[in-house]
């Protein structure tokens, strides 16, 4: 053999084999010392079963066969595998097959430094990916913590109004859960679903600024009183506005707009159609539903079917007809919330329902 070529093979740790009939491989270049260890168990006739010596090649040989049969001269790589030599060192190996001058050729290379270099580069990349993953998890964990605190504050705010008007704690919780079901059906992202769940219950928070003589009046409000009562939308919005907290921003929108009507006859600004924020349109629907089907000190509950008929009549006038249609399609979920979130043991019940919404 040409000593010049042999020298090159040795320097790049490459051995050239030609496959013979019967599937044995005959080396066409000198066997390097490291390779002798792996082939030592086989006959010394100068022909070797490489698949037996290197079990990894069992997954490659099928592709190699096809490559040779197609007589491709372009090399096909096996991918890298690791063997352990007689000194317990790891040897990174790679095989390539090709068709050369009518012969089925297999090149076996010990990758050495090239492998070490690639490994080191990949190690660095993966270490940074791990750090990045860890940081992202930490950010997520802290964001959840902040969100939980925001929720606690929001719930405290809502409880302030509950002390003054006749709405119950269960009612405001249900409003949030109904709204979250609607938001999920509308394919809102998880964060926004969570936001409306907490923001919707604050829709009447402005009632805190309405005098008791009006807020707690048992009879019908006169025009002057009603005009004062209407102010709760703007008071609520003013209370909630002006922060960078998404829950409070959405809550401000809802508080301001939940008495707007689809046909533009609502208050305080007479907005119509989609000019009314969707969060408010959703809250209006679920608030009306819950108020109708539950008893209050000033009114009796009405049967659900009757309530739904009333709401259907409101479609296109008071209520967004598309969202109402969606609400009606979600009635089984709404009923579950209505039945399960009652005054007793509210937190536990809400937890269970919430888990289902999240799933």
């Amino acid at each position: 053999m040409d000593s010049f070529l042999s020298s090159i093979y040795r320097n790049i740790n490459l051995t050239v084999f030609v496959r013979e009939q019967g599937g044995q491989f005959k080396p066409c270049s000198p066997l390097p010392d490291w390779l002798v260890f792996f082939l030592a168990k086989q006959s010394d006739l100068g022909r070797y079963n490489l698949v037996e010596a290197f079990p990894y090649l069992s997954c490659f040989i099928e592709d190699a066969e096809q490559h040779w049969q197609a007589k491709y001269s372009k090399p096909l790589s096996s991918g890298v595998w690791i063997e352990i030599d007689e000194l317990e060192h790891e040897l990174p190996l790679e095989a390539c097959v090709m068709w050369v001058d009518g012969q089925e050729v297999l090149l076996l290379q010990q990758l050495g430094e090239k492998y070490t270099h690639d490994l080191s580069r990949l190690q660095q990349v993966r270490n940074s990916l791990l750090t990045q993953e860890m940081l992202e998890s930490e950010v997520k964990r802290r964001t959840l913590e902040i969100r939980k605190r925001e929720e606690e504050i929001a719930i405290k705010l809502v409880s302030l109004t509950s002390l003054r008007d006749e709405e119950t704690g269960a009612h405001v919780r249900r409003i949030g859960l109904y709204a979250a079901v609607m938001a999920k059906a509308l394919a809102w992202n998880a964060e926004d679903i969570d936001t409306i769940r907490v923001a919707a219950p604050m829709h009447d928070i402005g009632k805190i600024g309405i005098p008791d003589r009006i807020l707690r009046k048992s009879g019908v409000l006169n025009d002057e009183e009603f005009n004062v009562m209407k102010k709760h939308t703007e008071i609520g919005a003013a209370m909630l506005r002006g922060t960078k907290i998404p829950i409070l921003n959405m809550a401000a929108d809802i508080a301001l707009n939940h008495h707007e009507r689809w046909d533009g006859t609502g208050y305080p600004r007479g907005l119509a159609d989609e000019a009314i924020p969707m969060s408010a349109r959703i809250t209006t629907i679920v608030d009306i539903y819950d108020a109708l089907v539950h008893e209050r000190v000033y009114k009796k509950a009405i049967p659900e079917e009757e309530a739904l008929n009333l709401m259907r009549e409101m479609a296109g006038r008071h209520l967004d007809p598309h969202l109402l249609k969606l609400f009606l399609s979600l009635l089984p979920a709404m009923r579950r919330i209505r039945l399960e979130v009652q005054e007793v043991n509210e937190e536990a019940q809400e937890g269970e329902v919430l888990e289902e919404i999240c799933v």
Partner: protein
Amino acid sequence: MVLQKKICLLGAFSVGKTSLIQRYVNQLFSEKYLTTVGVKIDKKQVTVGNTALSLMVWDLAGEDDFTQIRSAHLRGLSGYIVVIDGTRQNSFTVALALHERVRTELGQVPAVFALNKSDLKDQWLISHEQIRTLAQLGYPVIETSAKLGLGVEEVFMGLARQLVPEKVN
């Protein structure tokens, strides 16, 4: 008679595939994370009932955007262990994708899910819901710690038992 079976460990990078094999085959563990490039094959003899098995344990490089498992590596596969790092959400997603890929390419093959790093359980981000999802796939789900050697034998033996036909045993 010794039955020779090829099994693979699959999973995202750095979930502990190599560590589990090292613990199982050589009773060793290293804290240092050394990424795997390429494939390393270890052998382990086990006995299931009256059947001797020679497990060819293929340690495949972890999956990420830079490294994809070759279909050829799955050829002749008798079973596989999908490894998830309980402290990393991403590893759960990768595990399910890999499991689905094997099912698509090979059909129903014996498998076990290893929830690794149980020694760091206070830092786990995998939820109970996700663990329930895994269990519903119908394969054993076993918590492991390559570091402490917990559950390691069970994972490999859990797979080995599935590899022995009942009539042989």
